[in-house]
C-alpha cells in the first residue's frame, strides 16, 4: 500500500482544481451528500432534459477523495444519459469493492484513478459519497450518506 496509489496525480489535481465546482441556479435535481462523522458535506446539482444529463456541478467541503470523486463524476456524467450515470455509479462501487478487471477499468475511464481507495476501507465511503448524492438527486431524495 503506497500513498501514491491512493493520492494519484489525477486525484490530487481534481482536489486542487475541482471541475464544475459551483452552485447551479437552474438545476432540475439536487441533493446533499453528508457524512457527518467524517466531516464530508457536499451538494450535487444536475440539469436534466428528458433522460439526458445536460450539466452536473457540486460544491462543498470534504476530503480530497470525496472532492476528486465528485469532480470526476461531474465530468463523467455531463452529456450522458441518466442510465449511463447510474451504470457508472454501479461500476465504481464494483471497483471499490475490489472487483478489478480490465473491462471495468475501460468502462470507468478516468474514474479508474480512484482504484487505490479500495486499499483503504475507511476511505471507501468518501469516494462513494458524491455518487450516492447524485443517485439521491435523481430519485428526489434530499440527503444521501455512505456512513
Amino acid at each position, binding site marked *: 500500500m503506497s500513498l501514491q496509489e491512493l493520492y494519484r496525480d489525477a486525484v490530487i489535481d481534481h482536489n486542487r482544481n475541482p471541475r464544475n465546482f459551483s452552485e447551479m441556479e437552474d438545476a432540475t435535481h439536487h441533493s446533499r451528500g453528508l457524512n457527518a462523522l467524517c466531516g464530508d458535506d457536499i451538494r450535487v446539482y444536475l440539469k436534466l432534459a428528458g433522460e439526458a444529463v445536460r450539466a452536473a456541478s457540486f460544491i462543498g467541503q470534504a476530503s480530497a477523495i470525496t*472532492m476528486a470523486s465528485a469532480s470526476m463524476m461531474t465530468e463523467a456524467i455531463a452529456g450522458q444519459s441518466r442510465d449511463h450515470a447510474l451504470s457508472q455509479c454501479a461500476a465504481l462501487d464494483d471497483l471499490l469493492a475490489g472487483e478489478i478487471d480490465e473491462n471495468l477499468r475501460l468502462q470507468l475511464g478516468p474514474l479508474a484513478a480512484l482504484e487505490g481507495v479500495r486499499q483503504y476501507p475507511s476511505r471507501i465511503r468518501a469516494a462513494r459519497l458524491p455518487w450516492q448524492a447524485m443517485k439521491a438527486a435523481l430519485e428526489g431524495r434530499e440527503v444521501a450518506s455512505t456512513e
Partner: protein
Amino acid sequence: MSAAPKTIVDSGPLDVTVVRRDFPILSREVHGKPLIYFDNAASAQRPAAMINAVRNYYEEHNANIHRGVHTLAEEATTEYESSRTAMAQLLNAPSEKNLVFVRGVTEGINLVSQAFVRPRVGPGDQILVSHMEHHSNIVPWQLLARQTGCELRVIPITDRGEIDLEAFERLLSDKVKMMGLVHVSNALGTINPARQMIERAHAHGIPVLLDGAQAMPHMPVDVQALDCDFYCVSGHKMFGPTGVGMLYGKSNWLESMDPYHGGGEMIKHVTFEETLFNEPPAKFEAGTPNIAGGIGLGATARYLLGIGMERIQAYEAELLEYATEAVSTIEGLRIIGTAEDKAGVISFTLEGIHPHDLGTILDHSGVAIRTGHHCAMPAMQFFGVPATARASLAFYNTREEVDQFVSAVRKAREMLA
C-alpha cells in the same frame, strides 16, 4: 526475599526513556516507521504491568468473585477488590466504598442521570452542561429531559475554548438540579476550573458530576479537594483496559440512590414479594462484572501511583509547550482550543487539507492521530469546523516524536495543499 515491585521510585523529573520500556506496543512499526502514537485521547496504550495482571488473572486465579468459597474465587475477589482500593488511592476518595465499577464514563453518567437525578427532577427544572462536553455528557441528560420534562441548559464557552464564567454565574439558580461538566476537554484540551465552579454550584445547592476521562491520564485528581459529588473515569483512557471504569460518588448520595441495574450481587435478600438491596457500591454492581478488566485497572492505578501523577503532569506540561510552539510554525495551521490552562491535546485544522486526508498521510509516516469531530459535535459547531485533526499526548511521548510529527504534517501539506 521476593523481587521488589517494578515501580519507579525516583522522585526527580520523569525519565521518558525508562517509562517507554513499560509499554510494549511503543516498539512496533507502522508502514515500516516507528510508531508515534498521538491518539491517546481516544484510547491510551497499556503498560506491561496491566497486561501481565490480566494474563495472570486468567492463568492463575480465574473464577467468579464475591460468591465462591474455593481458593480461586477468594483470590479473584481479593485481586478485584484491591483494584477498588488502588483506584480510591489514585482519586483520593475517602473510602473504596465510594467507588462503583462501571464500564466507563458513559455508563457512569447514565447511572447518575437515571439513579440519582431522575427521581429529583421534573418540568421546570434544569440541568447544566457546558458547550465543550463529549456526547457522553450530553445525550444521557437529553434522554433524562425527555423522560422528566426537565430542561438542558448550556454554559457558553469563549473563542479560546474556556468556560465563560460570567455566563455560568448567570445560569445558576435554584431551578438547576444538577451540573455535568467535563474536567478536561477531549476535543480542546481545556482544563476547566472545576473546583471554583463546583463551589459556585454548591452555593446554589447544585450537585456536580465531573467527567474525568481526560483528566485522569494527565494530572493528579483529588475528588475530596475538588468536592465534586460524582467523578467518572474510563480505564482505557488512563492506560488501563477497555470496558471498565470507575464512578466515584459521595457516600450520602450513593446511599440515598436507587439501584441502576437489577440482578445478582446488588441484593441482600430476594423473594418474589420483595428484594432487599445491598449497600453501596455493591448496590450498583448487578451481575458478574468485567473481572479481568477490574484487575487490570487496579494494576494500572498502582503503576501510575508508582510514577506519580505530579511527575506525569510536569513532564506533559513541558511537552505540550514544546509541541504547541513546534506546530505553530506550520503554515496554514490553526489550533482549535487555546485555553490558558490546557492538557496535552492539540486540535487543529490545516488550510487546504481535510483532516481525514491528513490522518491517512500521517499514518504512512507511522503517526497515529485522530481526525473527525471527537464525539464533541457542538464544540466543533462552535468553532465553525466540521472536523479537526487532533494530536493528543501522553507521558511516554517525546520531543523527537513531536519533531517527526511536525515534519510529517509539512510533507502532507506539500503533497495536497
